[in-house]
């Protein structure tokens, strides 16, 4: 293989990444972002560095399936979407640009805290960057073993690559200062490199598993046959530190500066999280499927080395140079992606939270008077990028072969895990304060350094290792890997336990014993209550002071550059419909806006300091801040209460409206009723009056004639009386004022009696009546007279409607377990479906009321219905026109006891 060809290939690949980044940036400048949910999800795979690409196989080759913990943790963490969403929402609202900024902003925007977080991150991450360089060097070594490490133009190839990466990172990481510190081009390039490394790894995996061996089952079977590889297959050997590593990696996916950058800072749309929740875990699953097979294959083939380089070594051992080159590009891709994002994230932190605060403090430099500081800011970041990469390179050269890849990665993970109590506590616990955060972080960091970092230095031979074996000053309870006598844990679990325990304990203890200051109380509120949309942003309420527009605008110009500052202020004025911003008095909202813009460029802690130089802020006391926050939360509570009341009022109005409609309906029914009753009363009255007049006018009327007329008058009077009685009866029933006497009644006997009382009526019309009643008593609980009234109503209705002489009426009494049914069936004309609907309404009568003489009062059925329903039964009709009709009522049976 020609070294220059490999070099050109690598350079070409980096060039392609750069082209993608430029394209992404250009599209972002045009307002047409190429960051989709898929791009966001894939860019998270910057988590998979060369430590994954090469190191996982190495870890699997020595520890079996334990390597999976590093990927299971992030899978679970991503599913804690509410936590991630809250982080993203807070960062967007406060324009936070890094994890140091996030923690510092929560605890009162103080530079000391931001600085401490930055220092921990840099010390923790530099070895991790060194690890990437080491991986690149090792892969070059594998490709060109005879050269013993490649030299390019007389220089160490790894140094050349480190410098190229620095240049590359500077080119698309620090093009301009953005208020949001987003790099869309970089994110797109990272998403692309994620695909490249996945494809490369899968290609090697498929080749090894299915090209060299007969698939998973074959590999596992061969592995089981050899003692060295059989041990890898037993899950048991990885279980010792399984849970701590899952926890560690779950924290790392959020707390590593590059992960925070991609997951939180670079998020353009909260809804992209929906995709990332499963796409990123899927990526992790795919890139890990072939890790164990490759490790087993490497061991079966007896390849040299510790497994870190099997991904390259296996294709090379089979003479597959093309595949080896693809694997090299995959590894390079994984390393460059990590280095670029990590150095951008770290350089932002170093610039905003270490260098700028220091420079601003040195009055001799006169920074506050310089007209344009945006260049200076960019140059500081560029310097930081080079410095971080050189530190990484120096560490790589010094550490040499001391550690396998996986060891270094876990040291870095443990360092950033120290951010967890302050960060998560700050998001959910209002009482958490700066003293607690500082104490916790310092304690965690010291324990981490003592139990993990310094022992690793000792292993490299840089410092004496006595404190690891015998304990500091010979005190055995200070042994670095058995602190306070805690043994039986591996070094990572041991460090994680003590560092997180002491970190959390200090955070809680100091937070509970010391109070917050005013700014902290305000920020605690803004972080914890970020989801309370209305009134959640109380920061504008909490500012009182004086500032001039010119001074504010001047400040923005100095730090953002004149053009950017002008655009931002114009957009601010346009959104609020303000014609001339300069003419207006500066209010809290504008100061807050300026602070956020500055925070985007400088970090929130520095932004607060520079803003203080032009704004005369009236210092609010803690009491006052708490009072305002309390008021704001009361206002929120009131407005919620008001909303609730208004909803209740709406419901009550609806009910009233319905009641009103019902009343109108009842009123109409009453009018109908009165007019019907009047009409019904008038018919017999008219007849009575007409015949009485005839009798009065003609005293000489013949006796038979007179008898007939008198007969009619008597009948009509009877009808009138019956009508009035029934109306009164119905009115009483409906008003619930009827007198009821409930007692046990034998329904069978009652039916027989009712039939007997109407026998004459049936006989007169020549209608046959058939009774089907059981001999034994059928007890129901009812009013005997009322029930007789129902029976007589139904029977007399039936006889009214059947034809004379051919009419047949039958009564059936059927009792089931708990109910009894009485069915009165006739062979009359039947009832049509439309008639059925109103047959039980008052004054509605069956038959054609226009042509036929009314045969009753039209109140019998409504009264019967009321009676039956009163006793818990029901009454209905079954009929087809021309087929007769059955009136049926059903009553609950009185239990026989």
């Amino acid at each position, binding site marked *: 293989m020609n070294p220059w060809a490999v070099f050109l290939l690598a350079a070409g690949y980096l060039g392609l990444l750069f082209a993608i980044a430029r394209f992404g940036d250009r599209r972002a400048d045009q307002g047409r972002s190429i960051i989709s949910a898929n791009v966001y999800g894939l860019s998270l795979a910057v988590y998979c560095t060369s430590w994954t690409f090469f190191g996982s196989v190495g870890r699997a080759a020595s520890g079996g399936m334990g390597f999976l913990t590093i990927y299971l943790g992030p899978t679970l963490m991503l599913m804690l979407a509410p936590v991630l969403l809250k982080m993203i929402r807070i960062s967007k609202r406060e324009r936070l640009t890094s994890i140091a900024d996030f923690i510092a902003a929560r605890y009162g925007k103080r530079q000391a805290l931001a600085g401490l977080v930055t220092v921990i991150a840099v010390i923790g991450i530099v070895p991790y960057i060194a690890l990437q360089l080491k991986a690149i060097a090792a892969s070059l070594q594998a490709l060109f073993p005879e050269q013993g490490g490649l030299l390019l133009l007389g220089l160490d190839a790894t140094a050349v690559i480190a410098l190229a990466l620095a240049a590359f990172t500077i080119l698309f990481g620090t093009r301009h200062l953005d208020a949001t510190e987003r790099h869309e081009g970089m994110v797109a390039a990272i998403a692309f490199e994620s695909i490249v490394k996945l494809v490369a790894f899968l290609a090697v995996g498929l080749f090894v598993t299915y090209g060299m061996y007969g698939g998973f089952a074959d590999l596992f079977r061969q592995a089981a046959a050899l003692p060295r590889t059989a041990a890898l297959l037993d899950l048991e050997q990885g279980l010792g530190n399984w849970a701590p590593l899952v926890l560690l990696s779950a924290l790392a996916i959020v707390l590593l500066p590059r992960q925070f950058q991609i997951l939180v800072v670079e998020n353009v749309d909260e809804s992209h999280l929906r995709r990332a*929740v499963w796409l990123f875990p899927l990526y992790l699953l795919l890139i890990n499927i072939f890790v164990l097979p490759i490790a087993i294959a490497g061991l079966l083939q007896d390849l040299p080395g510790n497994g870190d380089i099997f991904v390259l070594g296996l294709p090379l051992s089979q003479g597959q140079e093309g595949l080896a080159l693809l694997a090299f590009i995959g590894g390079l891709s994984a390393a460059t992606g990590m280095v670029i994002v990590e150095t951008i994230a770290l350089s932002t932190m170093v610039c905003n939270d270490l260098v700028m605060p220091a420079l601003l403090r040195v009055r001799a430099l006169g920074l506050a008077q310089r007209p344009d500081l945006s260049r200076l800011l960019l140059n500081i970041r560029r310097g930081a990028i080079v410095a971080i990469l050189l530190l990484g390179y120096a560490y790589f050269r010094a550490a040499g072969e001391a550690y396998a890849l996986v060891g270094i990665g876990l040291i870095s993970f443990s360092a950033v895990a120290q951010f967890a109590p302050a960060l998560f506590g700050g998001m959910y616990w209002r009482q958490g304060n700066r003293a607690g955060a500082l104490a916790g972080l310092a304690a965690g960091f010291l324990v981490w350094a003592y139990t993990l970092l310094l022992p690793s230095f000792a292993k490299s031979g840089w410092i004496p290792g006595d404190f690891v074996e015998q304990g500091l000053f010979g005190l055995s309870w200070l042994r670095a890997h058995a602190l306070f006598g805690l043994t039986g844990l591996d070094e990572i679990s041991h460090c994680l336990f003590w560092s997180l325990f002491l970190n959390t304990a200090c955070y809680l203890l100091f937070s509970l014993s010391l109070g917050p200051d005013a700014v902290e109380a305000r920020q605690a509120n803004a972080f914890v209550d970020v989801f309370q949309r209305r009134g959640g942003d109380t920061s504008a309420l909490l500012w009182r002071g004086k500032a001039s527009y010119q001074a504010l605008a001047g400040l923005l110009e100095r730090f953002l550059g004149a053009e950017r500052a002008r655009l931002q202020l114009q957009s601010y004025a346009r959104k609020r419909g303000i014609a001339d911003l300069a003419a207006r008095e500066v209010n809290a909202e504008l100061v807050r806006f300026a602070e956020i813009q500055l925070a985007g460029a400088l970090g929130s802690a520095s932004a607060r300091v520079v803003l203080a130089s032009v704004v005369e802020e009236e210092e609010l006391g803690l009491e006052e801040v708490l009072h305002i926050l309390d008021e704001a939360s009361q206002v929120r509570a009131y407005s919620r209460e008001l909303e609730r009341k208004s909803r209740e009022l709406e419901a009550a109005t609806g009910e009233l409206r319905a009641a009103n409609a019902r009343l109108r309906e009842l009123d109409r029914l009453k009018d109908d009723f009165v007019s019907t009753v009047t009409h019904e009363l008038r018919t017999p009255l008219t007849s009575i009056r007409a015949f009485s007049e005839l009798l009065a006018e003609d005293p000489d009327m013949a006796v038979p004639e007179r008898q007939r007329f008198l007969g009619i008058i008597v009948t009509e009077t009877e009808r009138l009386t019956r009508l009035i009685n029934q109306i009164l009866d119905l009115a009483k029933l409906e008003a619930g004022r009827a007198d009821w006497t409930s007692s046990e009644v034998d329904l069978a006997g009652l039916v027989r009696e009712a039939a007997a009382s109407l026998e004459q009526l049936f006989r007169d019309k020549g209608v046959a009546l058939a009774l089907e009643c059981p001999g034994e008593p059928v007890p129901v609980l009812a009013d005997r007279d009322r029930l007789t009234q129902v029976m007589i109503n139904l029977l007399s209705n039936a006889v009214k409607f059947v034809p004379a002489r051919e009419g047949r009426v039958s009564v059936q009494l059927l009792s089931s377990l708990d109910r009894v049914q009485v069915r009165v069936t006739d062979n009359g004309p039947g009832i049509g479906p439309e008639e059925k609907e109103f047959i039980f309404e008052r004054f509605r009568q069956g038959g054609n009321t226009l042509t036929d003489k009314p045969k009753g009062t039209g109140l019998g059925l409504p009264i019967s219905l009321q009676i039956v329903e009163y006793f818990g039964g029901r009454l209905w009709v079954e009929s087809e026109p021309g087929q007769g009709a059955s009136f049926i009522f059903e009553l609950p049976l009185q239990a026989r006891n």
Partner: protein
Amino acid sequence: MQAFNRGRQRLVALALLGLVLLTPPMLNTQAGASGLDAFLYLFGVWAGLILAAAWVAERRD
């Protein structure tokens, strides 16, 4: 957002389920099992979680 809110709670429930299935003591059931069985268990549960998360997160009801 309301639907995503319910979805978010389901995702947290999935994370807890995953934690139980993918860490000891539940994982101890796989210790001593044949290598392929343990491998299939881990990747099977993992894939199942991803499928469920995709279904919950992408549903817009």
